[in-house]
């Protein structure tokens, strides 16, 4: 092998488990085990004095130090009101997540003996702008160059589409993870992977199944001991029960029943949980995934996708037999279990590898055509085909990858907008409405424009309230939207009344939103700075970053 390419690592930052992967010199995506030699690391953080412990040790510590251990932070990503307090210092979800990322990268660096700087992180397709931005911030706080945030189901589809290679087909990715549920329809073609539409619930995952077991165990304990108090008030018992619940859930994926012991306040109770009971008390949860799946099918049908070829199961929770059974019953199709724990990380790694190849390609094209890198970035499409071919051949020679392999890496990946985005406007009755410029499930990238008008002569500023919602309609009630940020347009002086101002929402393939405004009298572009409190930024961000660097993570 000749030239060494810069490796970009893929990180699956999961609610309950996380993992890291890269593409090796043979072009194969591999997961790097952590220092404890586990391929997945529990997304649990233990604040142990001055050091931070992440993973299995932290998870086990939860039993002893329930107040110093934090888990499931992903569910609070982008929530400005969440604060985990330790030593009278409040930590946001982004910062806690950064520790998980650092742990993964650090262990991988040690194992591989190389420095890692660039990463791709995955997030649920269902994440809105702020949650995505928060995820990116988590990577940045950890000190890495976050090349891209990509959707988990898309990552899974990439891993699936590049390994199980065959003719084109439409797949439904049913991704039931520890904390989130994503359902995505993806059209896999030999030269492209295109997301048709995505949906889900980021408050529905394996943890909910665990919680049902916990609730059941609490009842059993009450029945057997007659103790009426809420034993979950005791943090130790609560943690203990959660761990037992997760374990027994996993056992029940293999066996029909499992014994569980509950210890609280000196009382010890033995309980036998049967799979039948387990499925009974969680039936509503599985039904919700089915209902959401039907929603997506409806949405897809509107886009002309009336059928799909297969269902692939991703996420550890799809190992529960009830998932497979219920899907079979509902859709009369045998779902395909595809590398449920690692597909997402591997897909992210392949995506990173693609980015890296692309970097090399652009460098070479720039050199060959003597244009600047930016010029090529902006307009790769217009590069003559023969030059691209030549450069690819050159790369194949330099890197040692085969030509078809490189060509296959050129596969186009297209995602959709996870939500609808719009601005607050007033209608003729002076009621506040949200006018959607980008509708959810629109293919990315997208550039939507809309004219708004100045209300008074010589208007100085325009306040743009950027809204996110789930509606597929052009206008939607303001109360059904959330404000993800505001932007102030500082207008030039002397504009007349009723002057059209063109606001454009540009969403890049990654799902990041950029807003531009142009006043139409002299076609001046107006600066738009988005402000939001939903994710860590500014001083707080810098502080967190510095703090993160000084902390030791185990």
């Amino acid at each position: 092998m000749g030239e060494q390419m810069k490796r970009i690592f893929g990180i699956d930052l999961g609610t309950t488990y996380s993992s890291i992967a890269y593409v090796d010199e043979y072009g194969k995506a591999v997961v790097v085990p952590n220092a404890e030699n586990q391929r997945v690391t529990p997304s649990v953080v233990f604040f142990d004095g001055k050091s931070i412990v992440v993973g299995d040790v932290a998870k086990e510590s939860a039993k002893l130090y329930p107040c110093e251990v934090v888990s499931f932070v992903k569910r609070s990503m982008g929530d400005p009101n969440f604060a985990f307090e330790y030593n009278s210092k409040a930590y946001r979800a982004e910062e806690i997540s950064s520790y998980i990322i650092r742990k993964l990268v650090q262990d991988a660096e040690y194992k591989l003996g190389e420095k890692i700087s660039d990463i791709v992180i995955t997030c649920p397709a269902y994440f809105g702008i702020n949650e995505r931005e928060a995820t990116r911030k988590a990577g940045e706080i950890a000190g890495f160059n976050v090349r891209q945030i990509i959707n988990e189901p898309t990552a899974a589809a990439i891993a699936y589409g590049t390994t199980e290679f065959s003719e084109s087909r439409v797949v439904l990715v049913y991704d039931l993870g520890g904390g989130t549920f994503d359902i995505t329809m993806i059209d896999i073609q030999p030269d492209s992977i295109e997301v048709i539409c995505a949906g889900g619930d980021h408050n529905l995952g394996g943890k909910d199944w665990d919680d049902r077991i916990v609730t059941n165990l609490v009842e059993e304990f009450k029945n057997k001991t007659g103790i009426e108090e809420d034993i979950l008030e005791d943090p130790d018992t609560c943690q203990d029960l959660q761990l037992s619940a997760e374990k027994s859930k996993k056992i029940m994926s293999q066996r029909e029943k499992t014994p569980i012991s509950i210890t609280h306040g000196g009382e010890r109770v033995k309980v036998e949980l049967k799979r039948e009971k387990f499925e009974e008390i969680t039936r509503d949860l599985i039904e919700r995934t089915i209902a959401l799946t039907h929603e997506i099918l409806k949405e897809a049908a509107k886009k002309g996708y009336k059928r799909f070829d297969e269902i692939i199961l991703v996420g550890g929770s799809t190992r529960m037999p009830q998932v497979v059974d219920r899907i079979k019953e509902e859709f009369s199709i045998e779902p395909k279990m595809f590398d449920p724990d690692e597909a997402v990380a591997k897909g992210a790694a392949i995506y990173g590898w693609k980015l890296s190849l692309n970097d090399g390609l652009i460098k070479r094209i720039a050199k060959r055509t003597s244009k600047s890198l930016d010029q090529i970035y902006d307009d790769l499409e217009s590069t003559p085909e023969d030059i691209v071919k030549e450069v690819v051949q050159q790369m194949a020679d330099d890197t040692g990858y085969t030509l078809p392999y490189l060509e296959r890496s050129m596969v186009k990946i297209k995602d959709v907008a996870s939500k609808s985005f719009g601005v607050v406007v007033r209608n003729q009755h002076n009621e506040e409405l949200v006018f959607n410029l980008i509708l959810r499930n629109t293919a990315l990238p997208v550039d939507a424009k809309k004219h708004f008008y100045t209300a008074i002569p010589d208007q100085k500023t325009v306040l743009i309230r950027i809204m996110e919602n789930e509606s597929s309609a052009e206008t939607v009630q303001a109360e059904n939207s959330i404000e993800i940020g505001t932007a102030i347009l500082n207008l030039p002086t002397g504009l007349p009344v009723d002057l059209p101002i063109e606001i454009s929402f540009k969403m890049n393939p990654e799902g990041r939103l950029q807003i531009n405004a142009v006043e139409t009298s002299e076609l001046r572009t107006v600066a738009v700075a988005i402000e939001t409190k939903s994710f860590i930024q500014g001083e707080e961000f810098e502080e967190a970053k510095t703090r993160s660097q000084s902390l030791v993570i185990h």
Partner: protein
Amino acid sequence: MERENFYQVLELSVNPPESDQKKIEEAIKKKQAEWSRYRNHPTKAVLAKHYIDLIPEIRRVMLDPSLRPNEARQAKIQFQNKVKQKYLQIDRHLEIRMSKGFITDEEVFKLAKLHSVSEKKIRDRINAKLKEKYSRIDKQIEIRMSKGFIAEEEIAKLAKLHTMSEDEIRKRITCPIKKNYKVDSTQFHQLDKSIEKVIHANLKIVGKSSLYDFLGLSNSSSLEAIQKRTKEKETELLKIIKKDAVVTASGILVGQCIAVFKTQESRNAYNISIARSHLDELNSDIEVAGMDGKIRTEYFEALVKAAVKFGMDRDEACQYIKEYCREKKWNIETEKTKKHFRLPTTAIFATVIITVVITATIVWAVKSQHEKKEYQRLLVEVDNQNVLEEKISIIKKFSDSYSEGSYALKAEKMIIEIQNIIEERDYKSLLHRADILCTANNYTEATAVCKQYLEKYPNGIYKAKISSKMEDISVRSDDRDYEKLNTAIDFDSGEKIAVYMEYLNNHPKGKYRDKVNQFIADMQEEYYIFLKEKIFFYGKQEKWKICAQLCDNFIKIYDSSQHAEEIKSLQASFQKKLYEQKILANLMLKAEHKGNHYEAAKQIYLDYLKAYPNTSLKKKLNSELAKIQNLEDLDRKAKEKERLRALLKSAGGIFVEKKDGTITDTRTGLVWCMLDSNLELKRLIDYEFALQYVKSLRTGGYNDWRLPTVGELEKIYKRKPFFPSVESKEPVWYWTSENYACYSDGWSKVVDVVSSQKETSWNKDQKDCRQLGAVRAVRP
């Protein structure tokens, strides 16, 4: 969910209201950390999210000195009592007026005038009252549903209570209705406790009382309506971007709705669980009341009131609470027991002193003290109990637990005493009852109740007395019954014998037995003739059972008479016939089960005939076989007709079925028989039979059927459009009316025939009249 007061949420002091900005800020931070920690709690996560989402609002209000005082005021108000009810008096008046079940317009008018309010206001109150009434009925229904079903008797009771029709009550019931009260309730599927919890917790967050309330539907909505609404709710939720606690909880509830309202069965389970939750509230009240191991009189009354509020009636409430306490082994104090209680207390005191003295037996004493306590508790409980049988069962429980103890004997003695009281009570009530019955001349019932008593107390104290009472009854009834016999003179012989025999049975020691026996002996010939007549009558109807019974009656009375042998042999023959009748009925039933599998049905009879070739049922079986054959033929013909009718439709209106079974050729006006002889008879026939066949044919009510001519047949089979063809493997050929004498091996007759094969070129054919063919009959 109504917004909580922030002072309460933050647990800040209200009196005086906390106003230190710093302290408030600290409280918020503390709570924020607490809620963030609970963000992933297995049961409190959604609630925690709710509070986390509230933080900006809490900050806005609590950190603003201008908004805060109002919040403090609100907090105070919430502590104070609720606002007084405005229309309390009107309501009371209405209640009185409405107690008769309705209220008239005039009353409304008067009440409106009295309280100087508009009539509408009064009517609004009435509607509210009615609503209240219905919700009360629903509550009462619910509480009864908690056992998994509602019994018919409960419906009747509720209907009576509310002066409503049973149907109206039934409409409000959403669980199975059972005829009988005593059904094992465990067979009903119940919602898992943990699911109940999840539903309950999330309903609390969305501020709804039940899944029905959550969907905005009534409990009595149809399952389809509920499922439809669930879907709508789900879609509504998907549109909401702000995933706050209420939306999250709603999402969970929608999931539960999908699962709970999937089938009627799971819905019932949920309904039952709603009902059960009301009981849980009551149970928790009882638990609180019984904290110190007993229930005070005042508490008991309060509990009964609470239970009545939950929808029980007073009796049920008392019973329920008593039962609950009995299980918990709690004593319910009554005014009476309170007095009694003092005595045992002194006794305990005495025991304590004694135990101190006898130091060597401390261990025993402790035990004995405990036992004594229990014994005293037993005494109170027994005293409390009004039902004697219950008293015994309570004592028995005690003596089971302390069978070795020093009070076992006392307990045994007590049981015997109570048993004696019970026996005496029963004896007295028996005498009373027997006297009433005798006065009413109902000696039979009087004797029966006496017998019942003797069965219950075979070695009872009053055995002798009862026996003499029975004799007395018997003497009194003897005279009366003998007199009755005189009225039997006009009866027929059978009835006469019956009343004589009844007398003998009822009065084994009767004064008139000899006389009655003489009557019977005198009737022997008369009864013999009567019997023969009856046997003849029923024999004709093949009612062998009655015949056998009649014989039996005769033999029982006149076993040694000259006719006895004859009647006995008759009886044997009837029994044999009865047996055969049963076999036949059995076979017929089997055959019937085969439906239109005629072959299988026939086989049943054939098999029997093969197994018992000499059976006397042969004739009947053959007739049954013929019946089936007939049915089969009819069926076959009907099918064939159906098929032909279908074909006729495509014949372009040339062949029309004008009368059942006939087809008119509209070109020639000739009427053809729809089925040919082959289909009718299922066999081919010679010419001679063919002539007879058409002569006797009555299809369509016509009697002028004849054999067709060659030309006539040719027109329908050898020229288009063809007559609907017969379904058979090979075409049959039909006899015509054209026949000739012919010589081949001797003189014989030949007939022109036409085959049913559809062809346009054909050769005329002739057959010997002894050959076998078919007839397609035609009439003028």
